[in-house]
């Protein structure tokens, strides 16, 4: 178990490094950062000044190595756009994004568990196909578009939710639905498959045979077993939700990490962008690791093998 964890942690570091190299290169490929920083009205002298001031005149490899060195010493750099320390800036936005991610996950489970169960119960029937349709729609609709539909319904037609912002819990309802609906299908398929498998198992037949009410059989005996892989997937999907919140946060003007990432790309704020990429890739790998451990803990069969 320990060797397994160490191996995974080593992998995590490698993934984070690779992602940060890629992000660094991409940012420099999409136009000279000094020109973007200096702004539209800048003359060459201004741009040269900016380039020197931010050390952008050095070879890109040196810039990257320097950044990495600083990182290893806990120096997270300064935002070139907001001109504040990048570490605290990112931490201040993390709360909003975590809240969005967790509530989106809750929405996803709230949608997918009932749908998955229904689909499994009526396997091959109308309800199954309807659930499939709902799932397909969730993945097929671009989430910014779905977000707009939600806005039209809840804010313009019904007028029960504020369009955008992050002041109250009401502000999180639509973003959580928009983001959660997008990942719900993955859960639904997993629950459906798990339920179908479990429902065919001998102990379910036994439970039914001894005259237990159907509801009890489904929820107590079947769902409990079918839900094990969902726990693992939930951890992985949470990582995805944190990273995938860029679009949703932008649409709903939620002042979180995703919106900060969007801004830092627009303004070539590479210290901030690098740090976000690093943070998200580390989080993602850690969550995957957590998922593996949770799985092993929940399912003795994995532990044994």
């Amino acid at each position: 178990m320990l060797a397994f964890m160490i191996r995974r942690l080593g992998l995590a570091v490698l993934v984070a490094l690779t992602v940060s190299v890629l992000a660094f290169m991409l940012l420099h490929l999409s136009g000279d950062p000094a020109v973007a920083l200096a702004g539209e009205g800048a003359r060459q002298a201004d741009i040269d000044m900016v380039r020197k001031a931010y050390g952008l005149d050095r070879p890109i490899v040196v810039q990257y190595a320097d950044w990495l060195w600083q990182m290893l010493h806990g120096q997270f750099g300064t935002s070139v756009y907001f001109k504040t320390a990048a570490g605290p800036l990112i931490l201040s936005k993390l709360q909003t994004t975590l809240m969005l991610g967790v509530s989106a996950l809750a929405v996803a489970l709230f949608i997918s568990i009932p749908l998955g169960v229904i689909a499994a119960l009526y396997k091959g029937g109308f309800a199954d196909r309807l659930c499939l349709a709902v799932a397909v729609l969730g993945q097929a609709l671009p989430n910014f578009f779905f977000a707009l539909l939600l806005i039209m319904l809840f804010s313009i037609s019904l007028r029960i939710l504020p369009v955008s912002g992050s002041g109250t819990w009401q502000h999180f309802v639509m973003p959580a639905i928009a983001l959660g609906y997008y990942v719900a299908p993955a859960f639904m398929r997993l629950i459906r498959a798990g339920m179908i498998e479990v429902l065919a198992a001998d102990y379910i037949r036994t439970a039914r045979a001894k005259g237990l009410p159907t509801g009890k059989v489904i929820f107590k005996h079947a769902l409990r077993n079918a839900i094990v892989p969902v726990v693992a997937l939930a951890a992985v999907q949470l990582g995805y939700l944190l990273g995938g919140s860029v679009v949703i946060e932008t649409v709903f003007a939620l002042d979180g990490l995703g919106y900060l990432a969007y801004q830092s790309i627009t303004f070539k704020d590479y210290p901030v962008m690098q740090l976000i990429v690093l943070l998200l890739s580390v989080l993602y790998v850690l969550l995957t690791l957590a998922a593996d451990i949770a799985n092993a803990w929940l399912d003795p069969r994995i532990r044994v093998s």
Partner: protein
Amino acid sequence: MEHRENLAVPLHLDFSLDQGPVPSERAWWGRIASHLTAFSRTRQRPAMGAVKTLAAAILLTGTALTAQPAWANKADDTLRMAYDQAPESVDPYYNNVRIGVIIAANVWDTLLYRDPLTNEYKGQLAKSWKQIDDKTMEFELRQGVKFHNGEEFDADSVVYTLNYVADPKNKATTQQNVRWIDKVEKIDKYKVRLTTKEPFPGAKEYLSTTVVIHPAKYYAEVGPKGMNAKPVGTGPYKVTEYVPGKSITLEANKDYFKDSPKAQPKIGKVVIRFIPDRQTQMAEVISGGEDFIMHVPKDQAEQLKSMPQLQVKSGNTMRIVFMQMNILDNTPAPQLKDERVRKAILHAIDREAIVKNIVGEGAEILNTICTPSQTGCTDEGAPVYKYDPELSKKLLAEAGYPNGFDIDIVAYRERNQTEAIINYLQAVGIRAKLNFLQYAAMRDMIRAGKASLTHQTWGSNLVNDVSASTPVYFAFGNDDITRDPKVRELLDKGDKTIDSKARNEAYKEALTMIAEHAYAAPLWSLPVYYVASKDVNFTPYPDELVRFWDMSWK
């Protein structure tokens, strides 16, 4: 597929109803519920209980959410504005975005003031001023003006602020706003003397727009960082709350000095929220969550005109649109070196039709490369290239391209306009291929001499003087891809001549020369659409500056 239809139909009906009667909340959920129960009736199975529970849960969620968030209205004397971009800093010297300029004008004051309608200069923080010599101006300052934190405004404020921001070490973001200042000296408590590095006739323009005055003691203590965290100016509005990247709250400054050419503020509170998505902004004004948005695309602004609670206004802006043509030695499109080809390009584009159908109301057709409201900008004497595709084809044939040619056009914004231009060029045989890039990437490409045709825009950083526009593209700067030494000579002369008549003459000659040789294709100015609640009295000005002190409730 029919199952999906079942669900999709009621959704679609309700979403498209924003112009018809709005269905009540209950009716909507009722419809969802009836669909759900209808579907559950199709198969009577023991687990139907679960389906019923689900439907009930959805219904419950619906009714639980009826808590009404507060909507904007004039009752609480708060104007809510949404803008798509947050400034990097509120300190006007450390941002280069439009919303920064808007906040600056409302929270701070400048030494001089330019009337947006007559373009006449008046004293603001300065009572009067005089030109001592080509490089020196003297200002008599207003007495009794107080900053929002109580600090008194006097010569020290001016001296400290201007010397601080003009020092390149302090890295003011928009260097052209301050780099012309050599030094500022205090003569006495209410008199200062400003020296420019070279004769700089544009000084008054900068001193009335971007060069705001900070409180000396406070600024020396907290610097630009502290000024961003807790902004302090003398203007008609003061900042009471600022959450970077999210929102800024302004409150009317009740002690605003009475002699200011800016009006006393009438609206009590202004909250500006940063909402990056345009569609979200529109949803906000439709739902009443915001009272004021700007930069609304033409087609969407026109749709919003039908909403009874909204007013849609358009105004001109200082941003001009033009096409540069690369005629440097290493140009990838040597065809452009032929003046007839350049003229053919100008004659090929129906600017009137594009302005009418795509660009929108408030736009102005240009014949020279400068913003018409700028001092020194004129199209007098410059040739006008009328839309004439036949003449265009003839010119191309004369230049040796009877079958046209292939060319690249690089652009970075208003893509629909570029596409319209491409269609017109195609019609005369110039097969332009669009290369749509980010601003920084496009600029790199132009400066490396790799662009052929460019679809450019330029906003002059709000400076209403031609020295802020034409010379950028024709005085041998990095963005100059035509490089005519005669044009440069004339522009340099204009930039350094204090006598306004001789100065305007030099600019006029340069502008005419650019037009005669068709070095670039002047197109139009960009309009801006504002959408506001009908409760607000609002006048758009051609400088795209939102003056909250000028607004009031109806």
